[in-house]
């Protein structure tokens, strides 16, 4: 009993002591991220790297005014433009993204200026994305300050773009209808290609699905791996690795991951394409320009998206199907575009490809799914 009481007292005393230490000598980052100011996180901008570090910290803390004030070329643009450069000019993935971390890499330095690469890693609702800026840092007295390379977003001249693409609306049967009254038929979709492969992290099932119908379809694909005795091993869906809204005769790739499953355990695969009629519009049309497959090392497909419509596309998801020389699907990969697609303004994309598959790839096919809000910021 006495031992227990002594232990309790010791824990209580230790807790009080630690709380007191934490209060009197707090960790600077803890204070900053708790909203207690960021001065302690910022060092003296006595070197180019320190100046970029300070800028990164302020961006991470969303201390936009302080970050803007610290710039040496702030006279060239407004704080609003600086903010829009980082968070997007229109509602996009950037708008609600937070800077998760950043890397600073000195490239070149002289007595009065320096070149520093800054890699910003943002966290968004669909996963992380990177933003790399090459910064010119200049010396002002005994301090260094960053010349921010503002990316000016192109704006299309004011004009009226008539849009008269089709729009489909759906009226389903109601509860008051007679028994036997048929409902509108679900769109007819078909899996036109399916290919399972073994990867280091598990099995992968990929392929393509076609909307054979004359109506738009909301599609998804579910795959169930069955053991040789017919028992189910795992069942997974394509989630966002598919373009869900398919217009008539449109094809989308899909890829389904089964982490930790080896294909040697699998006797058969049950594929379940799901399609639902959905209200949709044939607009916007996105042109995928200058697609180029870049072989290993750093295998990727790059290109630009060009929004051919007259309104802003807030979120775009690029999906690419990679084929071998026989036309067999060898990989499916995708990338979200962190910036909104302004009308007629190309935006770069880069989809990485696993190095071990790069040598097999002979061609690729890219589709873009888009999300547009009624009112952009």
């Amino acid at each position, binding site marked *: 009993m006495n031992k227990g009481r002594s232990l309790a007292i010791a824990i209580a005393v230790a807790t009080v002591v630690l709380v007191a230490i934490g209060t009197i000598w707090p960790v600077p980052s803890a204070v900053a991220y708790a909203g207690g100011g960021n001065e302690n996180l910022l060092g003296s901008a006595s070197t180019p790297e320190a100046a970029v570090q300070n800028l990164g910290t302020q961006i991470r803390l969303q201390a936009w005014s302080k970050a803007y004030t610290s710039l040496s070329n702030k006279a060239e643009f407004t704080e609003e433009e600086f903010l829009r450069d980082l968070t997007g000019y229109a509602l996009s993935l950037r708008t609600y993204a937070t800077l998760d971390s950043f890397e600073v890499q000195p490239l070149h330095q002289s007595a009065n200026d320096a070149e520093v690469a800054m890699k910003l890693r943002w966290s968004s609702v669909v996963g992380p994305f990177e933003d790399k800026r090459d910064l010119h840092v200049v010396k002002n007295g005994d301090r260094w300050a960053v010349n921010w390379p503002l990316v000016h977003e192109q704006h299309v001249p004011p004009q009226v773009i008539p849009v008269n693409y*089709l729009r489909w609306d759906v009226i389903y049967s109601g509860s008051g209808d007679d028994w036997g009254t*048929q409902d509108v038929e679900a769109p007819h979709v078909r899996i036109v290609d399916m290919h399972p492969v073994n990867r280091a992290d598990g099995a992968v099932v990929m392929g393509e699905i076609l909307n*054979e119908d004359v109506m738009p379809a909301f599609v998804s694909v579910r795959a169930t791996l069955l053991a040789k005795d017919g028992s189910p091993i795992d069942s997974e869906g394509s989630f966002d690795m598919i373009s869900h809204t398919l*217009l008539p005769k449109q094809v989308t790739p899909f890829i389904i991951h089964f982490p930790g499953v080896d294909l040697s355990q699998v006797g058969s695969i049950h594929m379940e394409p799901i399609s639902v009629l959905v209200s949709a519009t044939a607009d916007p*049309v996105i042109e995928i*320009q*200058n697609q*180029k497959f870049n072989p290993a090392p750093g295998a990727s497909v790059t*290109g630009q998206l060009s929004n*051919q419509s007259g309104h802003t596309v807030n979120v775009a998801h690029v999906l690419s199907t990679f084929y071998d020389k026989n036309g067999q699907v060898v990989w499916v990969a995708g990338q979200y575009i962190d910036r909104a697609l302004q009308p007629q303004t190309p935006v770069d994309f880069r989809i990485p490809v696993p190095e071990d598959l790069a040598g097999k790839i002979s061609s690729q096919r890219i589709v873009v799914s888009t999300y547009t809000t009624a009112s952009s910021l």
Partner: protein
Amino acid sequence: MRFRHASVLAGLAFAFAAPMALAQGGSMSLPRTVTAGAAFSIPTTGSGKATLYIVGPGQALRRDVQMGEAATFPVGELYNAGHYLAILVGASSTDTDEFDVIPVARPETLGFLAKPSRLPVGLHNGISGAVYVFDAYHNLITAPMPVSFELSVSPGTVQSRTVTTRHGMAWTGMDSAPKEGVAKFVARAGEASSTRVIEEVPGDPCAIVISARPNAGKLEVQTAPVRDCGGNAIPDGTIVTFTETSNGRQTTVDVPLKQGIARVDMPAYKGSKISAASGVVAGNEIRWEGER
């Protein structure tokens, strides 16, 4: 079926729960069949008061009767078709008997299942129609009767079949017409009819032919009007994928048909190859050698 068993069991329970020591002479005389919803009566013999129970699928009736008189049931009182059990429980006697309630011979409504609601043109037996014939009380009329099916896309293009029902149901298959359109699929039995709408839509594009011309520094590529192999125009909104390949670079764009054709501006690279496809149907390929 479960309800019918329950009803019969309930009837039997009534019968066995009645007093066993019964006076003699109490009985009833049941018709073998009663038409659903029709008036009928059940004469009884004997004397004294009794209770008549009629138990069947979906219905159970109770009547206090004077033995020796007829228990009458007005129009619409007993309307669910099926096999019924009648139990007459008197003060000292119980009589049980069975009879059938049969559907009214005249069809009143049709349950018409037509599938699919949308299909491509030119499909043999692509449309199925199944009819269940019901009387005014929603009883399935099991007696054979002719049902006519008629599928019409436009005046003059009519397919019709007459099928006799078996166990209350008739089924037929129909071909979709070679021309697109909205078809009326009508089923008739007696005076009753039911209509469904079948959308007959164009099939896959038969051929995609593209052409290109320079336009303000770009290449305007467009298809000829896209039709299926029956000459039907492919619906607007159908996606045509244009692909331009030049020096290892590729530009693709999915363009919906508008007024029967798909049109897009693509980069004007000399020596580029441009092709188009829709679904699994590929079109011709053209090579752009620049303006001449």
